[in-house]
């Protein structure tokens, strides 16, 4: 079976695209490792219109059900490879051995957590090193934790952990954390949160679980900082490994360049969401969903021709 459109990525961009495609009558399929994408890791969403407050997982489930309600199949597998076999003929190879054929492709693969890349990080992942404060914060009740980073997600994680842990260090390489005023004020108001600026982690140490961090800038005259957990929130990078064969044009940071219609540099391939240069790189659910919709409107015109 050949689809009109294969959507690779099942986050807000991909699911929104699928809803629009189904309503246009475009035969589409969605492929995505985790349905709902990054929203599954969000504690609470408060800026999606119509939902004053919704848990991330609930949003993910609702969005998935919405897309499925049009009879679309969501394949929860990883894609291993995407190939263009001539005009209007794309092939996607899935981890279960399945091969999907489609006339057009929408790439909505989102981004992944950036890692610190220091000694001990990999070994202690899941043993004190975490990339999801909402998932794992609970295990640090009345313990000491550190958050690495200075952006909104780092600040959000610090505030969230400030309600659970006994002490929260925010370790930031720059002078002053760069986050929304709301987060900055919440951090300043909470005496349990302490910001260590101009500081990097050199190494993460622990045998069976995390014991301490080695800092490049001593804290209270010591390079060693004893913590029970460390949450890495140093931003994300686009998920582009899959695109080697397709050769879509990327910007200097690796994001897929798209036009206002969602088109990439390769004919028949569109992109939407966190993985693109679109929406001024404002990475939100609403912008991802909107980019998915815009791309599908253009794809519809293309398929009609």
């Amino acid at each position, binding site marked *: 079976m050949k689809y009109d459109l294969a959507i690779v990525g099942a986050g807000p961009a991909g699911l929104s695209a699928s809803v629009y495609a189904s309503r246009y009558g475009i035969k589409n399929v969605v492929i995505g490792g985790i349905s709902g994408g990054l929203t*599954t890791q969000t504690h609470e969403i408060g800026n999606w219109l119509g939902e004053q407050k919704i848990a991330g997982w609930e949003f993910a489930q609702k969005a998935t059900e919405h897309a499925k309600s049009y009879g679309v199949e969501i394949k929860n597998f990883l894609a291993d490879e995407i190939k263009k076999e001539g005009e209007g003929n794309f092939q996607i190879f899935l981890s279960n051995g399945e091969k999907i054929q489609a006339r057009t492709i929408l790439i909505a693969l989102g981004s992944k957590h950036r890692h610190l890349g220091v000694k001990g990080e990999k070994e202690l992942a899941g043993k004190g090193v975490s990339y999801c404060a909402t998932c794992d914060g609970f*295990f640090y009740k009345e313990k000491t934790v550190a958050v690495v980073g200075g952006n909104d997600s780092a600040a959000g994680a610090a505030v969230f952990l400030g309600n659970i842990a006994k002490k929260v260090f925010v370790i930031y390489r720059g002078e002053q954390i760069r986050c929304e005023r709301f987060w900055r004020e919440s951090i300043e108001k909470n005496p349990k949160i302490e910001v260590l600026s101009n500081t990097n982690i050199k190494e993460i140490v622990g045998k069976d679980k995390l014991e301490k961090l080695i800092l490049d800038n001593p804290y209270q005259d010591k390079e060693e900082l004893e913590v029970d957990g460390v949450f890495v929130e140093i931003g994300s990078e686009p998920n582009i490994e899959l695109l080697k064969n397709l050769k879509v044009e990327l910007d200097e940071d690796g994001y897929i360049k798209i036009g206002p219609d969602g088109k990439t540099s390769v004919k028949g391939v569109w992109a939407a969401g966190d993985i693109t240069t679109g929406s001024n790189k404002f990475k939100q659910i609403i912008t991802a969903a909107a980019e998915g919709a815009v791309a599908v409107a253009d794809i519809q015109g293309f398929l009609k021709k």
Partner: protein
Amino acid sequence: MSKVIDLSSENFQKEVLESKIPVLVDFWAPWCGPCRMMAPVLEDLAGEFDGQVQVAKIDVENPANQALAAQYQIMSIPNMKLFKNGQVIGELVGFRPKEELKKELQKQLGI
């Protein structure tokens, strides 16, 4: 009926440690999004591996289960541990799509 067993500190010994077949135990919590998305995957696998591997889950938010979570040093969820003859022989941290989890199980158990 669901083939995934709901574990607690009461039945853990019997259902996991004394089980005759390997048991995949998912440590999860209601607030954890990736854990929620794991649930249907585990349901499917429980059906596919029926008789070969028992699939079970334990809610670590429940205070009665926290001692077990501490004993198995759970610090990140979803956390899936594979038990055989009462011993942990494998561990997976973080969401896994179905096919990945299946491959992992087959590799670990040589089935």
